[in-house]
């Protein structure tokens, strides 16, 4: 996928990603958040910023010490 300044385009389907409520699971817990998803193939785009911030914090909160 290629990122543009204002929109994200799926590099496989060439379709614009749409913000859609997306579930993800970790260590028996399931969460949802809005993520850009391709309406064609269903792939989601998770930015490096999101991975390094909130998703990383979710993992830290759920993992045993």
């Amino acid at each position, binding site marked *: 996928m290629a990122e543009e300044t204002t929109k994200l385009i799926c590099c496989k389907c060439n379709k614009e990603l749409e913000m859609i409520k997306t579930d993800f699971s970790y*260590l*028996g*817990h399931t*969460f*949802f*958040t809005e993520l850009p998803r391709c309406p064609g193939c269903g792939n989601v785009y998770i930015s490096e910023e999101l991975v390094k911030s909130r998703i990383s914090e*979710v993992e830290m909160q759920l993992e*045993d*010490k």
Partner: protein
Amino acid sequence: MKINDMTVQKLPENTWSLCPVCLRKIRAERVHLGQKIILRKNCPEHGMYETTIWSGFQDMSEWIGTKEKPFEGVPPCPESCGLCGDHLRSTCCIIYNVTNRCNLNCSFCLAGDTIEHETSLEEICKSFFSFIEKGKTLLQLSGGEPTLRDDLPQIVQAAREAGARYVQLNSNGIRLGEDPAFVRSLAEAGLSFVFMQFDGTNDDIYNSIRGKKLLKIKQQAIENCAVCNIGVTLVPTLVRGINIGDIGNILRFAIAQSPKVRGVHFQPATYTGRIPSTPTASDRFTLDELIHEIQHQTEGTICADHLLPSACDHPLCGFHGDFIVNNNQIVSLLNRKNTNTASCCNDDASGKNREFVGRRWERPDPNKYESSCCSNNLSDMESFLKAARINGFTITAMAFQDAGNIDLARLRQCSLHVYDNGRTVPFCAYYLTAWKN
């Protein structure tokens, strides 16, 4: 205790202990006796001694797993404590006793009856710079009752200036309840959180263990700390026949006080220092029985699978559970079935433990999170993160050792250390006292 040999099965693990009378180092065995597991040892001078170390509510071998390192030869503990080359854990929390004065005269007291002594503020500040590691150390100010020192805020400030990451106060809460200005000065000096003695939810319990009614003043202490955004963790000493039946009430009280109260840290009574008498076999309250009582008295809201063996100290020394309080309901983040505990003892177990407890016991800056958005739906990632930061809640336990049940395999895995004149001594070695024959 009389033993029926037909019921006795040896566990694979042998260990080392001490004679409860002369503290001579002797071999010990953990053996099944019916459902229970006992520690059995035989001093050539003072004879056989046995004490219950596990009640059989869970499989002890499974609980310990692979987290115990077998001995190679005779261990150097405890005569080589401070920490020696054979010790398996670095320091997670370091205790500094700022006074041995106290305003209570409890039936159980680790510090025992000692001659009154107080190190000067100047000497304390000097020693802080000798052992505090910048941005890392979790310092517990203890005693005696530390709040009897009017210069405690200066001590807290000195610890911060020396670089302590967290400064914790161990207190009975009396002055914290009586003197809100003192609490404010502790907060301004940089106090991180309080461990407050809290044995139960009625005054009969305090009368029995502490010799006076204390419930009201402890509730006021929680309020005074809350005003200053200081997190309070409640610390019950559990004594059979006195407050075992109040475990569920203590938890419900604490949960209702979240986020002011950050958790409950249970401590089964240990028979060292000042004690009412040496324990009989039935006096012992083991970790697995505590877990059973937590599950039973909370009607399964908190269940055994939510509470995991210590990954930093020896599994027989403690357990921990990590929760969020949401709308006065408690939600567990951990589950033994989903948690890979095999890797926990590897790199920097003490450091991981320190960050875990610090993250939960310290209240976050209210200006940073309280005004942010979100619902009570913990499936929403943003709501979950906010709740985890603000309403995190721990249920932990630590089973200290005494002359009767000391197990050197546990001792050498201890990460709770006491600073004393340049030495850093594992907690249970520091406070160990011999029993009369």
